[in-house]
């Protein structure tokens, strides 16, 4: 760790350091872009992944915390903190040209904190309307409904964008621009559309049937979870995680629980650990089955959809018996799980493991092996490994581009380091690879379940936790492998019983970030295929 610190001090003498869970580098705004470039490009540092961009409001200053990861050096992570004291017109240099993933992430920060990013190509709001007054995640935000009445008219000027360009003399001037060219034939896909898997809107400029550019318009179901969490206690904040990516409910909640447990220094009983991991893997199977079904349905093969759902029912039945719900299970709690497993749990899981291999064969027969399906999926939506890393596309989509990014392998958590499973990697870089990675991950999840199902240890399902949970002063970042990629939770605590800042770094947010890259040059029908194979879940984007 100190080695890194030394090298950063050489690169940027004005940087100060905070020790903590990860090394935190405090850097002044004027030095930030230079340091970022050095961190990414200097040999021996090579922080090639921007894992999280977290907007912050420390009352006396606004700022951004960047979590950087270096894949070539054992996924080492550092955090960089950039602050500005100007609350009226805060500006920070954009790093969206270094890490493309920052493009949407910085728009989100701009939307919620009003921090303008210099040299960002498209500085529009991401979730809220252009005419929204105020920046909701600022601590002094006025939530008076009179300021932002329910609009009765369409949003105006949605094609207008602006870029804050720094001139040679250091002066920053706003350069207005347009999202689409004047004569573009723009087809609106969503927000109410059968194939956007939720309330998502894409605006696609098409030339005949060929897509030229895709503009992502998000925020139709944004619930402001991060803001809500700031007013709630930690146990109360837990239930939101099930409502973000509802297909990764267990993993997401596992992540938040682990982050809180890490902060409290709480040891989770072995039985709870095993149950949590089994639930995570069941969730993954259920999610990948849904993804299989939806991909098939988006391609017009409705029957395959029902086959996927048939097996998914079994997983949901297991959840229903143990958790009491089929969706939004609210199962993990701080220190363990809320209830013990149902007596049928072991039997049901064994039955699922028994039938899955033959059912997977059936899926391949009816869909994956079909010549039409292969023609529709193969060589569609090319995403190279470099782009996957640069856009931080984790999960099955990243592994379909041959990027080894499985959090269970690179940052083992819970009991994953003891388990024997393979990380599925395919090098097709297309929709078919992403789809096949999911199908193979179902097999791997079954393998994990098989190892655990007979070895659930006796013991407590929950550690003793105090009635009122207070975290010490500090900050923590925890990642897990959710069904769709690396899910991260950032907690900043001031020692109170509610978080000062709780940020969720969702994988789907990055997935929509590559829609323009992967869809350009393909056809309208491919846009649907690519969306289905990337498999984003909208509530995870609109947190």
């Amino acid at each position, binding site marked *: 760790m100190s080695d890194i610190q030394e090298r950063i001090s050489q690169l940027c003498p004005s940087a100060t350091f905070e020790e903590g869970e990860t090394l935190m580098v405090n850097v002044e705004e004027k030095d930030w872009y230079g340091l970022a470039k050095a961190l990414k490009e200097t040999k021996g540092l090579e922080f090639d992944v921007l894992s999280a961009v977290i907007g912050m409001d420390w009352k006396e200053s606004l700022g951004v915390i960047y979590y950087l990861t270096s894949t070539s050096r054992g996924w080492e992570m550092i955090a960089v903190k950039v602050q500005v004291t100007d609350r009226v017109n805060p500006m920070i240099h954009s790093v969206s040209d270094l890490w493309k993933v920052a493009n949407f992430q910085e728009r989100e920060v701009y939307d919620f904190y009003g921090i303008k990013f210099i040299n960002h190509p498209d500085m529009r709001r991401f979730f809220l309307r252009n005419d929204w007054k105020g920046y909701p995640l600022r601590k002094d935000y006025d939530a008076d409904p009179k300021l932002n009445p329910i609009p009765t008219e369409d949003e105006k000027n949605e094609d207008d964008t602006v870029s804050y360009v720094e001139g040679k003399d250091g002066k920053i001037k706003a350069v207005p621009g347009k999202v689409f060219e004047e004569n573009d*034939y723009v*087809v*609106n896909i969503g927000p109410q*559309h*059968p*194939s956007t898997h939720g309330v998502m809107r894409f605006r696609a400029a098409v030339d005949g*049937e060929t897509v030229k550019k895709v503009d992502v318009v998000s925020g139709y179901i944004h619930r402001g979870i991060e803001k809500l969490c700031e007013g709630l206690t930690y146990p109360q904040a837990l239930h939101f995680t099930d409502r973000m990516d509802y297909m990764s409910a267990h993993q997401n909640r596992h992540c938040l629980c682990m982050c809180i447990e890490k902060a409290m220094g709480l040891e989770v009983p072995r039985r709870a650990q095993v149950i949590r991991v089994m639930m995570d893997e069941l969730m993954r199977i259920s999610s990948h089955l849904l993804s299989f079904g939806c991909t*098939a*349905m*988006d*391609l*017009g*093969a*409705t*029957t*395959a959809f*029902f*086959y996927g759902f*048939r097996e998914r029912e079994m997983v949901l039945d297991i959840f229903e018996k143990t958790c009491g719900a089929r969706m939004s299970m609210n199962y993990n709690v701080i220190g363990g799980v809320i209830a013990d497993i149902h007596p049928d749990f072991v039997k049901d899981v064994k039955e699922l493991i028994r039938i899955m291999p033959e059912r997977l064969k059936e899926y391949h027969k*009816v*869909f994956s092996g*079909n010549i*039409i*399906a292969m*023609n*529709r999926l193969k060589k569609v939506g090319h995403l190279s490994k470099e782009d996957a890393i640069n856009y931080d596309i984790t999960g099955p989509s990243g592994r379909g581009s041959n990027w080894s990014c499985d959090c269970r392998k690179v940052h083992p958590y819970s009991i994953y380091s003891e388990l024997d499973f393979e990380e599925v990697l395919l090098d097709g870089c297309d929709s078919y690879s992403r789809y096949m990675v999911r199908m193979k991950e179902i097999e791997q999840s079954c393998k994990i379940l098989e190892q655990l199902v007979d070895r659930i240890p006796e013991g407590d399902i929950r550690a003793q936790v105090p009635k009122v949970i207070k975290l010490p002063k500090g900050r923590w970042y925890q990642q897990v492998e959710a069904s769709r990629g690396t899910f991260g939770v950032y907690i900043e605590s001031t020692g109170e019983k509610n978080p000062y800042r709780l940020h969720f770094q969702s994988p789907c947010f990055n997935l929509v970030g590559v829609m323009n890259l992967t869809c350009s040059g393909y*056809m*309208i*029908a*491919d*846009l*649907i295929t690519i969306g289905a194979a990337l498999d984003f879940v909208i509530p995870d984007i609109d947190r």
Partner: protein
Amino acid sequence: MFNFGIWTSEFNNFLMGFLPDWLTVVVECVIIALLVLLTYTVLALFYILYERKLCAWFQCRLGPMRVGKWGVLQVFADMFKILIKELISLKDTDRFLFKLAPYIVITSSVVMLACLPWGNGLQIIDYNIGIFFILAVSSVGVLGILLAGWASNNKYTLIGAMRSGAQMISYEVSLGLALITIVVFAGTMNINELVWEQESAWFIFRGHIPAIIAFLIYIVAATAETNRGPFDLPEAEHELTAGYHTEYSGIHFGFFYLAEYLNLFIVSGIATLMFLGGWMPLHIPGWDGFNNVMNWIPSIVWFIGKSFFISYVIIWFKWTFPRVRIDQMLSFEWKYLMPLSLANLVLMAVCVALGWHF
């Protein structure tokens, strides 16, 4: 074989007995028009249920079960629902063309229905160019779809209509060539004669290899002609919400819906007529006893049964295959299907010229 023509001519004589000639023709026309429309509706309703039940069984479901025994009355409930729905008129559309489009689509399919030979003596129009007429009328339907897509003033419908135009015009070529292959073999375009030609054995057996190839080409092209999966691009609901009929509601939408199902029956009926003997029972040359037993089954049952079977096959692959993409679909037609049908036509001509057939 029972000839239904006896009944119809008796009825004709009965009317002639007390009505002047011109009035007889008028009365008969009205009765036939009513019969055709009634058949049309009943068949469409049956087909909706047929497809819903079949697709449910393919998908490990039961399908409609609540209204009536096994859900048989569900389609009637749906029909009344669609009849009483509001016809929503939209801003900035071409009102006249918008309303005209569904009628063009449904008219073309009713006219085609009227040409089919239902049984021995049960045929409404019998031209000497019958099959040619059917092909000609079937191309009118695409006009309605294009108009619907254009007049709706919606981007989805326009893309759907463009796809439909490209698709139907392309696949019409293969469809026509497949039928012409059989016309070459039969030497006639008259529907009645076509059926009688198959008295000794159906064309698919008599024409052997070229006839079987033509049959397969026909099934593929006919699926594309009726906009059914895997060629349902004009209304690909996962891409274009509902394609060309996105903006239609009530009975106007119902017309598109009915026409789609009826076209499925019609293309199956044409396949039956051209390849499987029309209403002609299954005859095997030399097996007179067997042939006589087959003759006992009424010809109308043969026709409807065979048509339903072909529809079953088409429905089967709709619910199995994913949808193709527009460029794949067009290249499939122009690069593979059409050259194959041309080659097949030559093969058939050689077979006919050299007498290599049964």
